[in-house]
Protein backbone atom coordinates (compact mmCIF):
# COMPACT_ATOMS: atom_id res chain seq x y z
CA UNK A 1 0.00 0.00 0.00
CA UNK A 2 1.26 3.45 -0.77
CA UNK A 3 0.40 7.03 -0.01
CA UNK A 4 -1.65 8.68 -2.70
CA UNK A 5 -2.97 11.99 -1.54
CA UNK A 6 -4.04 13.99 1.48
CA UNK A 7 -6.95 16.29 2.00
CA UNK A 8 -6.87 18.76 4.85
CA UNK A 9 -9.78 20.94 5.76
CA UNK A 10 -9.38 24.66 5.31
CA UNK A 11 -8.67 25.84 8.79
CA UNK A 12 -10.52 24.47 11.73
CA UNK A 13 -13.70 22.48 11.49
CA UNK A 14 -16.20 24.41 13.58
CA UNK A 15 -19.57 23.29 14.79
CA UNK A 16 -21.28 25.76 12.54
CA UNK A 17 -19.70 23.93 9.61
CA UNK A 18 -21.18 20.71 10.85
CA UNK A 19 -24.70 21.99 10.58
CA UNK A 20 -25.46 21.68 14.27
CA UNK A 21 -27.39 24.48 15.91
CA UNK A 22 -25.61 26.43 18.59
CA UNK A 23 -27.65 25.17 21.53
CA UNK A 24 -26.71 21.61 20.72
CA UNK A 25 -23.17 22.70 20.02
CA UNK A 26 -22.74 24.06 23.51
CA UNK A 27 -23.76 20.74 25.00
CA UNK A 28 -21.69 18.71 22.60
CA UNK A 29 -18.56 20.68 23.34
CA UNK A 30 -18.27 19.09 26.74
CA UNK A 31 -16.34 15.85 26.29
CA UNK A 32 -17.81 14.30 29.41
CA UNK A 33 -21.31 14.70 27.99
CA UNK A 34 -20.41 13.00 24.74
CA UNK A 35 -22.24 9.73 24.20
CA UNK A 36 -21.24 9.20 20.62
CA UNK A 37 -19.72 11.11 17.72
CA UNK A 38 -19.81 10.18 14.05
CA UNK A 39 -17.89 11.79 11.26
CA UNK A 40 -19.95 11.22 8.13
CA UNK A 41 -18.53 11.73 4.67
CA UNK A 42 -21.27 12.44 2.18
CA UNK A 43 -21.05 12.11 -1.57
CA UNK A 44 -18.13 9.70 -1.47
CA UNK A 45 -17.10 8.79 -4.99
CA UNK A 46 -16.54 5.06 -5.53
CA UNK A 47 -15.96 5.04 -9.25
CA UNK A 48 -12.20 5.17 -8.70
CA UNK A 49 -9.81 2.80 -6.96
CA UNK A 50 -10.39 1.16 -3.56
CA UNK A 51 -8.75 2.87 -0.61
CA UNK A 52 -8.64 3.38 3.12
CA UNK A 53 -9.39 6.93 4.26
CA UNK A 54 -7.49 7.54 7.49
CA UNK A 55 -8.89 10.39 9.53
CA UNK A 56 -6.63 12.47 11.75
CA UNK A 57 -7.56 15.23 14.20
CA UNK A 58 -5.22 18.19 14.59
CA UNK A 59 -2.42 16.63 12.58
CA UNK A 60 -2.43 18.32 9.18
CA UNK A 61 0.96 16.79 8.33
CA UNK A 62 -0.29 13.23 8.68
CA UNK A 63 0.60 10.89 5.87
CA UNK A 64 0.48 7.18 5.12
CA UNK A 65 3.41 6.53 7.47
CA UNK A 66 1.84 8.30 10.45
CA UNK A 67 1.04 5.80 13.24
CA UNK A 68 -2.66 5.13 13.63
CA UNK A 69 -2.93 5.91 17.32
CA UNK A 70 -4.48 8.69 19.39
CA UNK A 71 -1.08 10.21 20.13
CA UNK A 72 -0.82 11.10 16.46
CA UNK A 73 -4.41 12.25 16.19
CA UNK A 74 -5.71 9.15 14.45
CA UNK A 75 -9.48 9.09 14.83
CA UNK A 76 -10.51 6.15 12.67
CA UNK A 77 -10.86 5.04 9.08
CA UNK A 78 -13.42 4.48 6.40
CA UNK A 79 -12.99 2.22 3.42
CA UNK A 80 -14.18 2.54 -0.16
CA UNK A 81 -14.67 -0.55 -2.32
CA UNK A 82 -14.12 1.00 -5.70
CA UNK A 83 -14.91 0.28 -9.32
CA UNK A 84 -11.61 1.80 -10.52
CA UNK A 85 -12.64 2.28 -14.12
CA UNK A 86 -15.67 2.53 -16.34
CA UNK A 87 -16.01 -0.52 -18.55
CA UNK A 88 -18.98 0.71 -20.53
CA UNK A 89 -19.40 3.28 -23.25
CA UNK A 90 -19.06 7.02 -22.54
CA UNK A 91 -21.62 8.02 -19.92
CA UNK A 92 -22.11 4.52 -18.53
CA UNK A 93 -20.67 5.44 -15.13
CA UNK A 94 -22.06 8.97 -15.03
CA UNK A 95 -24.62 8.97 -12.19
CA UNK A 96 -26.37 11.91 -13.83
CA UNK A 97 -27.28 9.72 -16.81
CA UNK A 98 -31.06 9.35 -16.75
CA UNK A 99 -31.22 10.98 -13.34
CA UNK A 100 -34.35 13.09 -13.89
CA UNK A 101 -36.81 12.60 -11.04
CA UNK A 102 -39.80 10.69 -12.27
CA UNK A 103 -42.17 8.82 -9.99
CA UNK A 104 -42.95 6.48 -12.88
CA UNK A 105 -39.28 5.53 -13.34
CA UNK A 106 -38.96 2.13 -11.65
CA UNK A 107 -35.39 1.48 -12.65
CA UNK A 108 -32.81 0.91 -9.95
CA UNK A 109 -30.75 3.87 -8.76
CA UNK A 110 -27.62 4.45 -10.82
CA UNK A 111 -24.82 2.13 -9.74
CA UNK A 112 -22.35 4.99 -9.41
CA UNK A 113 -24.37 7.28 -7.18
CA UNK A 114 -22.01 8.59 -4.52
CA UNK A 115 -22.39 6.99 -1.11
CA UNK A 116 -21.93 7.93 2.53
CA UNK A 117 -19.18 6.62 4.80
CA UNK A 118 -19.24 7.00 8.56
CA UNK A 119 -16.41 6.90 11.08
CA UNK A 120 -17.23 6.68 14.76
CA UNK A 121 -14.92 9.18 16.47
CA UNK A 122 -16.28 9.19 20.01
CA UNK A 123 -13.03 8.24 21.73
CA UNK A 124 -10.93 10.43 19.48
CA UNK A 125 -13.10 13.44 20.16
CA UNK A 126 -12.95 12.85 23.90
CA UNK A 127 -9.19 12.51 23.74
CA UNK A 128 -8.77 16.01 22.31
CA UNK A 129 -11.13 17.48 24.87
CA UNK A 130 -14.22 17.84 22.73
CA UNK A 131 -15.11 20.52 20.24
CA UNK A 132 -14.46 23.69 22.19
CA UNK A 133 -11.29 24.50 20.24
CA UNK A 134 -12.44 23.15 16.89
CA UNK A 135 -10.67 20.50 14.88
CA UNK A 136 -8.26 20.45 12.00
CA UNK A 137 -9.29 17.45 9.98
CA UNK A 138 -6.95 15.51 7.72
CA UNK A 139 -7.90 12.55 5.59
CA UNK A 140 -5.12 10.41 4.21
CA UNK A 141 -6.11 8.09 1.39
CA UNK A 142 -4.11 4.88 1.26
CA UNK A 143 -4.85 3.04 -1.91
CA UNK A 144 -5.42 -0.71 -2.02
CA UNK A 145 -2.85 -2.79 -3.83
CA UNK A 146 -4.92 -3.66 -6.86
CA UNK A 147 -4.53 -3.63 -10.62
CA UNK A 148 -6.00 -1.96 -13.66
CA UNK A 149 -5.25 1.23 -15.50
CA UNK A 150 -6.94 3.78 -13.27
CA UNK A 151 -4.34 6.05 -11.70
CA UNK A 152 -6.67 8.87 -10.67
CA UNK A 153 -6.46 9.98 -7.03
CA UNK A 154 -9.34 8.08 -5.43
CA UNK A 155 -10.21 10.46 -2.57
CA UNK A 156 -13.30 12.44 -3.51
CA UNK A 157 -16.31 13.42 -1.44
CA UNK A 158 -18.87 16.19 -1.37
CA UNK A 159 -18.79 17.25 2.28
CA UNK A 160 -18.06 15.93 5.73
CA UNK A 161 -20.32 16.35 8.74
CA UNK A 162 -19.65 15.80 12.40
CA UNK A 163 -22.61 14.51 14.40
CA UNK A 164 -22.35 14.46 18.16
CA UNK A 165 -24.76 12.92 20.65
CA UNK A 166 -24.95 13.55 24.32
Amino acid at each position, binding site marked *: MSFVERWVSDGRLQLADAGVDQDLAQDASAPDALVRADLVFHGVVHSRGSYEGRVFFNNPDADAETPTDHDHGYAGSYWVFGHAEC*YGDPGHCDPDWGAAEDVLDFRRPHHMLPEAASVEVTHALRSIGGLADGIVLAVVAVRAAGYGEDDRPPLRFDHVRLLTYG
Partner: protein
Amino acid sequence: MPTIPIGPIRQPIQRLRIRRNINLLTPQQLATFRAAWKASYALSDNRGYAHFAGLHGLPLPTECSHNDTFWLPWHRAYLYFFEMSVRDLAPSVTLPWWSWASGKLPAAHTATTDDNPLRHAAIPANARVPNGPSQTVRAGPRPGSLPTQAQITNVLARDDFLDFSAALRQLHNSVHVAIGGSMALVANAAFDPIFWAHHSYVDRAWRLWQLNHASSGLPQSVLNTALAPFPMTVQQTLSVTALGYDYARSTLSLPFAATGGTS
Protein backbone atom coordinates in the same frame (compact mmCIF):
# COMPACT_ATOMS: atom_id res chain seq x y z
CA MET B 1 -31.14 -42.23 30.40
CA PRO B 2 -29.74 -39.25 28.53
CA THR B 3 -28.28 -36.45 30.59
CA ILE B 4 -28.55 -33.77 27.94
CA PRO B 5 -31.59 -31.60 28.77
CA ILE B 6 -33.08 -31.25 25.33
CA GLY B 7 -36.12 -32.72 23.70
CA PRO B 8 -36.34 -34.52 20.38
CA ILE B 9 -35.73 -32.29 17.40
CA ARG B 10 -38.42 -32.21 14.77
CA GLN B 11 -37.57 -33.26 11.26
CA PRO B 12 -37.95 -29.86 9.52
CA ILE B 13 -35.23 -28.36 11.74
CA GLN B 14 -32.88 -31.17 10.79
CA ARG B 15 -33.28 -30.24 7.15
CA LEU B 16 -31.86 -26.77 7.66
CA ARG B 17 -28.56 -26.43 5.90
CA ILE B 18 -25.83 -25.20 8.22
CA ARG B 19 -23.13 -22.91 6.90
CA ARG B 20 -19.97 -23.80 8.77
CA ASN B 21 -16.79 -22.08 9.86
CA ILE B 22 -14.29 -22.74 7.05
CA ASN B 23 -11.58 -23.40 9.62
CA LEU B 24 -13.65 -26.12 11.27
CA LEU B 25 -14.49 -28.20 8.22
CA THR B 26 -13.51 -31.84 8.52
CA PRO B 27 -11.01 -33.10 5.92
CA GLN B 28 -13.87 -34.90 4.18
CA GLN B 29 -16.09 -31.80 4.17
CA LEU B 30 -13.24 -29.71 2.76
CA ALA B 31 -12.50 -32.31 0.08
CA THR B 32 -16.16 -32.35 -0.97
CA PHE B 33 -16.27 -28.57 -0.96
CA ARG B 34 -13.21 -28.35 -3.18
CA ALA B 35 -14.58 -30.99 -5.54
CA ALA B 36 -17.84 -29.05 -5.86
CA TRP B 37 -15.88 -25.87 -6.57
CA LYS B 38 -13.96 -27.59 -9.36
CA ALA B 39 -17.17 -28.93 -10.85
CA SER B 40 -18.63 -25.43 -10.82
CA TYR B 41 -15.53 -24.09 -12.58
CA ALA B 42 -16.06 -26.66 -15.31
CA LEU B 43 -19.52 -25.35 -16.18
CA SER B 44 -19.32 -22.49 -18.64
CA ASP B 45 -23.05 -21.81 -18.84
CA ASN B 46 -25.37 -20.11 -16.39
CA ARG B 47 -25.05 -22.93 -13.85
CA GLY B 48 -21.34 -22.40 -13.36
CA TYR B 49 -18.92 -20.37 -11.28
CA ALA B 50 -17.99 -17.80 -13.91
CA HIS B 51 -21.63 -16.93 -14.49
CA PHE B 52 -22.29 -16.23 -10.82
CA ALA B 53 -18.97 -14.45 -10.25
CA GLY B 54 -19.68 -12.30 -13.27
CA LEU B 55 -22.98 -11.04 -11.88
CA HIS B 56 -21.09 -8.93 -9.34
CA GLY B 57 -19.04 -6.85 -11.74
CA LEU B 58 -17.80 -7.83 -15.16
CA PRO B 59 -19.05 -8.71 -17.68
CA LEU B 60 -21.55 -5.87 -17.64
CA PRO B 61 -24.09 -5.22 -16.30
CA THR B 62 -22.75 -4.78 -12.79
CA GLU B 63 -25.61 -6.15 -10.72
CA CYS B 64 -24.31 -5.83 -7.17
CA SER B 65 -25.82 -3.33 -4.80
CA HIS B 66 -23.59 -1.64 -2.25
CA ASN B 67 -25.79 1.02 -0.72
CA ASP B 68 -26.64 0.69 2.94
CA THR B 69 -30.26 -0.28 2.43
CA PHE B 70 -29.91 -3.01 -0.17
CA TRP B 71 -26.44 -4.47 0.09
CA LEU B 72 -27.25 -7.04 2.78
CA PRO B 73 -30.46 -8.32 1.12
CA TRP B 74 -28.86 -8.33 -2.33
CA HIS B 75 -25.81 -10.30 -1.24
CA ARG B 76 -27.96 -12.75 0.77
CA ALA B 77 -29.89 -13.50 -2.42
CA TYR B 78 -26.63 -13.69 -4.36
CA LEU B 79 -25.13 -16.29 -2.03
CA TYR B 80 -28.39 -18.22 -1.91
CA PHE B 81 -28.58 -18.72 -5.67
CA PHE B 82 -24.89 -19.49 -6.01
CA GLU B 83 -25.06 -21.96 -3.14
CA MET B 84 -28.02 -23.70 -4.76
CA SER B 85 -26.04 -24.02 -7.99
CA VAL B 86 -23.15 -25.64 -6.10
CA ARG B 87 -25.53 -27.96 -4.28
CA ASP B 88 -26.79 -29.17 -7.63
CA LEU B 89 -23.26 -30.55 -8.01
CA ALA B 90 -22.68 -31.67 -4.40
CA PRO B 91 -25.87 -31.72 -2.28
CA SER B 92 -24.06 -31.74 1.06
CA VAL B 93 -22.14 -28.54 0.40
CA THR B 94 -22.97 -25.17 1.92
CA LEU B 95 -21.01 -21.93 1.68
CA PRO B 96 -18.66 -21.82 4.68
CA TRP B 97 -17.81 -18.55 6.40
CA TRP B 98 -14.47 -17.06 7.25
CA SER B 99 -14.12 -15.01 10.43
CA TRP B 100 -12.15 -11.82 9.80
CA ALA B 101 -11.14 -11.89 13.47
CA SER B 102 -8.96 -14.91 12.77
CA GLY B 103 -6.48 -12.34 11.50
CA LYS B 104 -5.50 -14.16 8.33
CA LEU B 105 -6.95 -15.89 5.33
CA PRO B 106 -8.15 -19.45 5.99
CA ALA B 107 -5.69 -22.19 5.19
CA ALA B 108 -8.28 -23.78 2.94
CA HIS B 109 -7.95 -20.79 0.62
CA THR B 110 -4.20 -20.34 0.78
CA ALA B 111 -2.82 -23.87 0.53
CA THR B 112 -0.42 -23.87 -2.39
CA THR B 113 -1.06 -27.37 -3.60
CA ASP B 114 -1.59 -27.42 -7.34
CA ASP B 115 -5.10 -28.76 -7.08
CA ASN B 116 -6.44 -26.26 -4.55
CA PRO B 117 -9.35 -24.59 -6.38
CA LEU B 118 -9.91 -22.15 -3.50
CA ARG B 119 -6.60 -20.36 -3.95
CA HIS B 120 -7.49 -18.62 -7.17
CA ALA B 121 -9.86 -18.85 -10.09
CA ALA B 122 -9.78 -18.06 -13.78
CA ILE B 123 -11.12 -14.72 -14.92
CA PRO B 124 -12.69 -15.26 -18.35
CA ALA B 125 -11.73 -12.90 -21.15
CA ASN B 126 -15.05 -11.05 -21.09
CA ALA B 127 -14.57 -10.22 -17.39
CA ARG B 128 -10.97 -9.00 -17.48
CA VAL B 129 -10.17 -5.34 -16.98
CA PRO B 130 -7.71 -3.72 -19.42
CA ASN B 131 -4.28 -5.22 -18.74
CA GLY B 132 -5.79 -7.23 -15.91
CA PRO B 133 -4.81 -10.79 -15.03
CA SER B 134 -6.37 -13.96 -16.41
CA GLN B 135 -6.73 -15.42 -12.93
CA THR B 136 -7.42 -13.87 -9.56
CA VAL B 137 -4.57 -12.47 -7.49
CA ARG B 138 -4.24 -11.27 -3.88
CA ALA B 139 -1.87 -8.73 -2.36
CA GLY B 140 -2.67 -9.21 1.32
CA PRO B 141 -3.84 -9.05 3.97
CA ARG B 142 -0.90 -7.81 5.96
CA PRO B 143 -0.93 -8.48 9.72
CA GLY B 144 -3.27 -6.23 11.64
CA SER B 145 -5.25 -5.07 8.62
CA LEU B 146 -8.36 -7.21 9.15
CA PRO B 147 -11.25 -6.25 11.46
CA THR B 148 -10.85 -7.35 15.06
CA GLN B 149 -13.44 -9.12 17.18
CA ALA B 150 -13.87 -5.92 19.18
CA GLN B 151 -14.79 -4.01 16.00
CA ILE B 152 -17.22 -6.72 14.96
CA THR B 153 -18.81 -6.79 18.40
CA ASN B 154 -19.17 -3.02 18.30
CA VAL B 155 -21.02 -3.25 14.99
CA LEU B 156 -23.29 -6.06 16.16
CA ALA B 157 -24.28 -3.94 19.17
CA ARG B 158 -25.80 -1.20 17.02
CA ASP B 159 -29.58 -1.25 17.35
CA ASP B 160 -30.65 0.70 14.27
CA PHE B 161 -30.58 -1.42 11.13
CA LEU B 162 -29.19 1.25 8.82
CA ASP B 163 -26.54 2.16 11.38
CA PHE B 164 -25.62 -1.52 11.71
CA SER B 165 -25.69 -2.04 7.95
CA ALA B 166 -23.48 0.98 7.24
CA ALA B 167 -20.94 0.02 9.90
CA LEU B 168 -20.83 -3.60 8.77
CA ARG B 169 -20.38 -2.46 5.17
CA GLN B 170 -17.38 -0.42 6.25
CA LEU B 171 -15.73 -3.47 7.86
CA HIS B 172 -16.60 -5.45 4.73
CA ASN B 173 -15.00 -2.77 2.57
CA SER B 174 -11.89 -2.86 4.74
CA VAL B 175 -11.48 -6.58 4.01
CA HIS B 176 -11.69 -5.96 0.27
CA VAL B 177 -9.03 -3.26 0.61
CA ALA B 178 -6.83 -5.37 2.89
CA ILE B 179 -6.79 -8.40 0.59
CA GLY B 180 -6.24 -6.21 -2.44
CA GLY B 181 -5.67 -7.58 -5.91
CA SER B 182 -8.88 -8.88 -7.46
CA MET B 183 -10.78 -8.45 -4.21
CA ALA B 184 -10.14 -4.69 -4.29
CA LEU B 185 -11.91 -4.31 -7.60
CA VAL B 186 -15.71 -4.52 -7.76
CA ALA B 187 -15.39 -5.80 -11.33
CA ASN B 188 -13.41 -8.93 -10.40
CA ALA B 189 -13.86 -9.47 -6.65
CA ALA B 190 -16.39 -12.29 -6.88
CA PHE B 191 -14.04 -14.36 -9.01
CA ASP B 192 -11.71 -14.79 -6.03
CA PRO B 193 -12.97 -17.85 -4.12
CA ILE B 194 -12.39 -16.06 -0.80
CA PHE B 195 -15.14 -13.62 -1.79
CA TRP B 196 -17.80 -16.21 -0.97
CA ALA B 197 -16.42 -17.08 2.48
CA HIS B 198 -16.05 -13.34 3.14
CA HIS B 199 -19.67 -12.67 2.23
CA SER B 200 -20.91 -15.73 4.06
CA TYR B 201 -19.41 -14.11 7.14
CA VAL B 202 -21.17 -10.83 6.31
CA ASP B 203 -24.44 -12.72 5.97
CA ARG B 204 -23.79 -14.51 9.25
CA ALA B 205 -23.21 -11.18 10.98
CA TRP B 206 -26.59 -9.99 9.72
CA ARG B 207 -28.17 -13.22 10.98
CA LEU B 208 -26.58 -12.73 14.42
CA TRP B 209 -27.87 -9.16 14.49
CA GLN B 210 -31.33 -10.36 13.54
CA LEU B 211 -31.37 -12.86 16.40
CA ASN B 212 -31.25 -9.92 18.79
CA HIS B 213 -33.66 -7.65 16.95
CA ALA B 214 -37.29 -8.58 16.48
CA SER B 215 -37.83 -5.95 13.80
CA SER B 216 -35.98 -6.15 10.52
CA GLY B 217 -35.41 -2.41 10.76
CA LEU B 218 -35.64 -2.08 7.00
CA PRO B 219 -37.92 0.67 5.73
CA GLN B 220 -41.35 -0.73 4.85
CA SER B 221 -41.12 0.97 1.48
CA VAL B 222 -38.29 -1.27 0.26
CA LEU B 223 -39.58 -4.68 1.35
CA ASN B 224 -41.24 -5.43 -1.98
CA THR B 225 -38.29 -4.27 -4.02
CA ALA B 226 -36.95 -6.93 -6.35
CA LEU B 227 -33.28 -7.84 -6.06
CA ALA B 228 -32.39 -8.10 -9.72
CA PRO B 229 -31.36 -10.34 -11.37
CA PHE B 230 -32.69 -12.73 -8.75
CA PRO B 231 -36.38 -13.67 -8.50
CA MET B 232 -36.47 -12.56 -4.88
CA THR B 233 -37.63 -9.49 -2.98
CA VAL B 234 -36.05 -7.83 0.04
CA GLN B 235 -38.82 -9.32 2.18
CA GLN B 236 -37.90 -12.83 1.06
CA THR B 237 -34.34 -12.39 2.29
CA LEU B 238 -35.26 -11.46 5.84
CA SER B 239 -35.37 -15.01 7.21
CA VAL B 240 -32.48 -17.38 6.58
CA THR B 241 -34.47 -20.31 7.94
CA ALA B 242 -37.20 -19.60 5.38
CA LEU B 243 -34.44 -19.87 2.80
CA GLY B 244 -33.46 -23.23 4.29
CA TYR B 245 -30.16 -22.47 6.00
CA ASP B 246 -28.70 -21.12 9.20
CA TYR B 247 -25.42 -20.39 10.96
CA ALA B 248 -25.82 -22.37 14.14
CA ARG B 249 -22.55 -22.62 16.04
CA SER B 250 -23.29 -26.23 16.85
CA THR B 251 -26.12 -28.64 16.33
CA LEU B 252 -27.06 -31.67 18.33
CA SER B 253 -29.68 -34.20 17.34
CA LEU B 254 -31.03 -36.99 19.49
CA PRO B 255 -33.38 -39.68 18.30
CA PHE B 256 -36.66 -39.71 20.20
CA ALA B 257 -35.97 -43.12 21.71
CA ALA B 258 -32.69 -41.88 23.19
CA THR B 259 -34.56 -39.30 25.24
CA GLY B 260 -36.51 -42.00 26.98
CA GLY B 261 -39.56 -41.77 24.77
CA THR B 262 -41.10 -44.79 23.12
CA SER B 263 -42.44 -44.90 19.62
